[in-house]
């Protein structure tokens, strides 16, 4: 009974309908494309002229707010790759699935993309919970996932490439900077009550106490979707910390920053460093509420290097002049390009070959400047500190050197 009962004619048609919806366009060029069987020995869905990839983000539900940027960036990258002739002479076709901000749906759609549609790679997920839900499916079906979000680390899977920063890259350099420039000694840690804030604050606390010899005067968590932060603000005023270290997410994030401003904790009176506010979030919070505060990210839209200028222009051309690009959106943009380089270096779409060819790959045209894939499937990248202004953009004040990714940091467990 283990063998598959029958060829799935019906699901192929469903895949085609979804493919018709896909946005990929561009003229396929028939350069000397290598024969399909040589570059696809594991039954992936590849023809002489096309290769299918999956895109698995939340287009609906509470996470749609954050994931729309990633969807747009990945589609822009694929469109540009197709214009430049695709990969190994094949145009990339996207099968888009909606995770609907619901983790079991992510797992269900991931299995559909890998088992039914046999896509060559998947660009998707945003929250840690969605990644954890699909991880067993990718490892069992030997699929390939490019995961864009900065996250808590503590994971290193053969089938996943993490194009966002892991916790230590984002936290440690940021804390060092704020301690040095502001002479900060006392910190108040705040976060939404789930895995990423709790784990990141654990690393931050260890770094503050052991390395910076500072003091953590308070640590508070509020349920996801919480909207009343008055008591917390009063508690903070009681402790008068040098810096508030904030990792609040989603709808609560907007309420938190608005209520901070309303309680008089503007940048002049209280230094706040956050790792959960990008240009996307500032769109919802409103520039006037973020003026003067600091974010530690690896990418800001205002980075002035030629790669970024071209990327921002292309993004605005496709998605409207007041579109904004945040850290995760840029990291998502890297996904397709890194996959392209790995496939071309490996000369094949087979997942194992692509994974083997990825380490040490350098992407010099990255909007954030330069990234290199580390054998642990994360990226060497720089950390930047941006100060927000009224218009909703951030001025980059500091740029660290290249930081090695270390998902299992010793001494911070």
């Amino acid at each position, binding site marked *: *009974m283990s063998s598959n009962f029958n060829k799935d004619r019906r699901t192929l048609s469903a895949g085609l309908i979804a493919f018709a919806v896909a946005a990929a366009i561009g003229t396929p060029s028939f350069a000397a494309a290598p024969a399909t069987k040589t570059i696809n020995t594991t039954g992936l869905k590849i023809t002489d002229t096309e290769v299918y990839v999956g895109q698995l983000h939340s287009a*609906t539900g509470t996470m749609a707010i954050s994931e729309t940027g990633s969807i747009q960036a990945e589609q822009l990258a694929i469109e540009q790759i197709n214009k430049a002739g695709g990969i190994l002479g094949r145009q990339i076709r996207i099968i888009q699935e909606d995770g609907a901000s619901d983790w079991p749906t992510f797992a269900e759609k991931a299995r559909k993309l890998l088992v039914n549609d046999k896509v060559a790679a998947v660009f998707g997920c945003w929250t840690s919970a969605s990644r*954890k839900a699909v991880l067993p499916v990718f490892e069992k079906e030997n699929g390939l996932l490019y995961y864009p979000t900065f996250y808590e680390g503590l994971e290193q899977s053969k089938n996943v490439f993490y194009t966002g920063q892991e916790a230590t890259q984002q936290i440690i350099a940021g804390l060092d900077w704020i301690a040095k420039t502001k002479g900060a000694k006392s910190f108040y840690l705040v976060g939404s009550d789930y*895995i990423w804030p709790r784990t990141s604050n*654990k690393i931050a606390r260890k770094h503050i106490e052991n390395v910076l010899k500072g003091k953590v005067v308070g640590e508070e*968590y509020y349920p*996801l979707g919480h909207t009343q932060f008055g008591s917390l603000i009063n508690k903070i005023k009681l402790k008068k910390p040098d810096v508030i270290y904030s990792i609040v997410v989603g709808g609560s994030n907007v309420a938190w920053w608005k209520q901070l401003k309303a309680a008089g904790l503007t940048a002049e009176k209280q230094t706040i460093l956050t790792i959960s506010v990008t240009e996307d979030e500032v769109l919802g919070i409103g520039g006037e509420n973020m003026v003067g505060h600091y974010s530690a990210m690896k990418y800001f839209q205002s980075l002035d290097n030629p790669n970024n200028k071209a990327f921002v222009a292309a993004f605005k051309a496709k998605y409207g002049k007041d579109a904004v690009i945040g850290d995760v959106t840029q990291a998502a943009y890297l996904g397709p390009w890194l996959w392209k380089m790995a496939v071309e270096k490996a000369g094949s779409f087979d997942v194992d070959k692509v994974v083997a060819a990825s380490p040490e790959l350098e992407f010099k045209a990255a909007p954030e400047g330069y990234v290199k894939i580390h054998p642990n499937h994360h990226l060497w990248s720089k950390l930047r500190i941006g100060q927000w202004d009224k218009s909703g953009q951030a001025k980059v004040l500091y740029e660290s050197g290249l930081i090695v990714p270390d998902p299992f940091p010793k001494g911070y467990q």
Partner: protein
Amino acid sequence: MKAVGGFLRKHDLAGILVLAAILLVVLPLMLDLFRLNLVGKYLTYAFVAVGLVLCWGYGGVLSLGQGVFFGLGGYCMAMFLKLEASDPASTKIQSTPGIPDFMDWNQLTALPWFWQPFHSFTFTLLAMLLIPGLLAFVIGIAMFKRRVGGVYFAIITQVIAAILTILIIGQQGYTGGVNGMTDLKTLHGWDIRSDSARYLLYFLCCALLIGGVFLARYVLGSKLGKLLLAMRDKEERVRFSGYDVAEFKVFVFTLAAMFSAVGGALFTLQVGFMSPSFVGIVPSIEMVIFTAVGGRASILGAIYGSLLVNWAKTFFSESFPQLWLLFMGGLFIAVVMFFPNGLAGVLEQHRVRIGEWWRKCAGRLRPTPAVPLQRENHS
């Protein structure tokens, strides 16, 4: 219509046989393994729907917290599978091997006491039923003895769902938090993710569901079933015929909770992970909607309702990723507005009409009263 075996009327048995045929023969032939596994997932929601038919359709008790019992059943099974998947060998890179990964992150060095018993599978099977059953019993006693009912009870069950979600997400050291318990691999060494396991689990789920239908049919066919119907419309008359109405509501609420718990455990086995996203307010309301679409007073209707709504959700979201929410919202409104008794209601009306037409031809006209379902008992 002479009752076959006491509690099964002839057309009931036919209905169950048709369902069994569809689940055990038609679907496995038609669908590939991936879609079949999806159907298996939908069937786990059908357990909750059957429970809701008992406690809401017949007993008049609407619970907006079935996700709590579905989740508890699922978490018990997940704890067992997680312990088996976290043996010292495969977790050697952790600072304390032998314990689940999320505990290691949260600086737990030893397995908490309430996890210990879940090493044994028999304990898990018992706990899977008893813990949700006990919680439902306590809530039932607390609420029904004090005559809390109708909309108040619904809102309170919703609050309990909200509380349990906050607790599970907050105590991530013990429960895996918002990520839930993932990477469940084997049950007593048997790899539950292999294709053969998926088939076996699918058929196990169908068999248990059909067993559940017989149990529900037995309960509704017995005097208790008549009492539930009587209670839903004339609760006072039942109370003044010498029955402690609260006792019956507690029983039917606890039974519905156990049905949901079995569904939850089967979900964990078939999908391979369990997370708080099944325990919250939204999933609990969706479970009520499966029953409403199928027909709240018909066990088979509720099962078909679960299958149809979930299949529609997958199909719409696959082909119209932008607009599927519109279809789902429209479907719920249409069900409530145009066929209040759900699909089963539509079928019932037609069957009565067909039945009469058939008998007219055969010359034996005898009106068979359909069970009117619509009186809202606003206790």
